[in-house]
């Protein structure tokens, strides 16, 4: 149990997926304009990450059995793409309220590199099934935390007086640098 908590805390704070590992930046910059969409996207990412890990872990064991682990990238991305389509169809039919809440964000997730990143990282780190699920949940939570924090910062940027050259994306990136700086405080934490 202690191990699981350590994995989650490490994923959320010490190795934040967006602010210190640079995964999912496209979604981070694209969707963090408003708090509501940040929460929606974050929820969808947590859900997909946990489910994708649960799918790719047995797939990797199968690849290992036939000694074709070099097909990992191809197999994983196919599993993720198929899986995202599948939950979209299933959710639409069986859980309309959840589909309404997450539906719009689902197609965006296939191209979110954090999802493929976390499934590959789980294998590289040699995590067990339970640890992989914990890491996937922690990484999704880290993504959500970064998005929610940053949407607050962006609301302030919108009202401030910025030099013409830096308006738009440059100002957003520099604000992201400052948010990232705040996460450096966790960097030395040994768990």
């Amino acid at each position, binding site marked *: 149990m202690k191990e699981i908590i350590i994995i989650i805390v490490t994923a959320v704070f010490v190795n934040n997926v967006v*602010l*210190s*590992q*640079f*995964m*999912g*930046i*496209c*979604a981070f*910059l*694209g*969707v963090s*304009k*408003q708090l*509501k*969409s940040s929460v*929606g*996207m974050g929820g969808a990412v947590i859900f997909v990450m946990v489910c994708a890990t649960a799918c790719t872990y047995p797939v990797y064991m199968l690849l290992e059995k036939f000694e074709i682990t*070099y*097909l*990992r*990238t*191809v197999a994983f*991305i*196919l599993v993720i*793409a*198929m899986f995202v389509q599948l939950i979209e169809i299933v959710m639409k039919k069986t859980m309309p309220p959840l589909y*309404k809440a997450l*539906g*719009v*964000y689902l*197609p*965006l997730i*296939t*191209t*979110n*590199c954090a999802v*493929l*990143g976390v499934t*590959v*990282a789980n294998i*590289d780190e040699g995590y067990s099934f339970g640890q992989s699920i914990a890491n996937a949940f922690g990484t999704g939570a880290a993504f959500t935390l970064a998005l929610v924090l940053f949407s607050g910062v962006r609301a302030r940027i919108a009202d401030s007086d910025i030099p*013409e*050259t*830096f*308006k*738009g*994306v*440059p*100002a*957003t*990136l*520099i604000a*992201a*640098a*400052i948010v*990232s*700086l705040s*996460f*450096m405080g966790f960097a030395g934490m040994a768990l």
Partner: protein
Amino acid sequence: MNENKPLSAEFTKGLLKENPVLVMLLGMCPTLAVTTMASNAIGMGLATTFVLVCSNFVISLLKGIIPKAVRLPCFIVIIAGFVTLISFIMQRFLPGLYESLGVFLTLITVNCIILGRAEAFASKNKVLPSVLDGLGMGLGFTLALFVMGSLREIFGAGSWFGIKLPGLSNEPMLIFIMPAGGFFVLGCVIAAVGKIARKKPPKEISCENCPSAAVCGRDKSKCTADAPAKGAAESEASK
């Protein structure tokens, strides 16, 4: 795409005018993650260029064969195949670079530049323009990574391609090679390129350069990136 455009224009547009990172704002993740050293940046850029040229070549050959409904999974499988190939080549011949790029070599698969070019260009154009487009975009990406990597290595580590620079290597500004420095340098470089090249700052991410345009098919009602609240409200109303 303009039919009358000379072939050289397909190649040169990616370098600066439509630079995928600095103007179209695609592929941010590798741009920030692997640019702590100039040599890593070049390695990543060239690996991506290889995948981009090969996938553009194959996709433009197959553009009449792939059914429209399943084109995205097809594109992704083709791209993933070439990514696997380049990581084999790199593991064998450049093991040092292979180690330092790590998971980001695998993540070339989901680099929005490659899927974006496949969707926006290679699936609609002939083979030769597609290859040139891939080459130009890839080299533009490499150029952006090289600029980022050089700036971060010179200021953050006081060296360039591993060669120590006198004066800077005594007290390097470590912040530049940390994650926060990556965001900061990229923001400044984008602002500088916007100032020099177009005299106006880059626009916010819109459908034109949205990484997800390939997925949502530019369907405004599905759009979450541009106007999240509006998009969500519209899609709810349409049901």
